[in-house]
């Protein structure tokens, strides 16, 4: 079965990113397909490569990136939510005159159309977070 995942909460806010990660990982292990993981609202914080948690804590960003590497996941960050929260890629840096980027290379910034498409293409959309 084809799943789309939506995450609305920051990586260390409550538990949404952990729950979504474990759901996604388990679904893949069971042979299901993950069409896309869409990060919305504070969820865009899951996509910054500058995250540095304490060494004995889980690294939420790298964990998503490693899962994406292994299963070729499409990790998409909402552009408007990203702009508000200072999550920047090369295109956004140029467009908005910023002097740096911070998005993890396994993530990409795109629009809400990607969420709608995922909801249409997938058999189930599962939403995590506030």
């Amino acid at each position, binding site marked *: *079965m084809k*799943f789309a995942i939506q995450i*609305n909460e920051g990586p260390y806010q*409550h*538990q*949404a990113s952990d*729950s979504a990660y*474990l*759901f996604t*990982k*388990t*679904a893949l292990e*069971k042979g*299901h397909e993950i069409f896309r993981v869409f990060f919305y609202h504070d969820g865009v914080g899951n996509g910054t490569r500058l995250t540095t948690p304490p060494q004995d804590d889980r690294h939420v960003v790298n964990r998503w990136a490693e899962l994406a590497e292994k299963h070729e996941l499409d990790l998409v960050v909402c552009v408007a939510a990203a702009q508000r929260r200072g999550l920047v890629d090369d295109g956004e840096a140029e467009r908005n005159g910023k002097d740096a980027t911070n998005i993890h290379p396994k993530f990409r910034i795109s629009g809400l159309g990607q969420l709608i498409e995922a909801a249409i293409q997938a*058999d*189930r*959309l*599962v*939403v*995590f*977070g*506030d």
Partner: protein
Amino acid sequence: MSELHTVNKSPFEKNSFDSCLGHVLEGSAVLLYEDGVYAALKGTATEGKVKAAQGVKFYALGPDLKARGLAQDRVSDGIEIIDYAGFVDLATEHDKVVAWV
């Protein structure tokens, strides 16, 4: 058409559990996870609501109970404890997944 409803907030913090119960239809399922597992406990104000929901199957996510130090014998009768694989199965068995947050 059956639905899987997920509740991830404590019923003592937000009213999402009550909102969920107000919409859930017979033949559907409710999964309590994250802080939502507090709604699964015996001897609380939610216990009667779980029992009163006719034809609705309730589940609680075992790892989230464990993370909160809640032993399985504290969970109300009739609520099935599942793991993440069970969560994925529930999502496939129902026609859609509705998140109450």
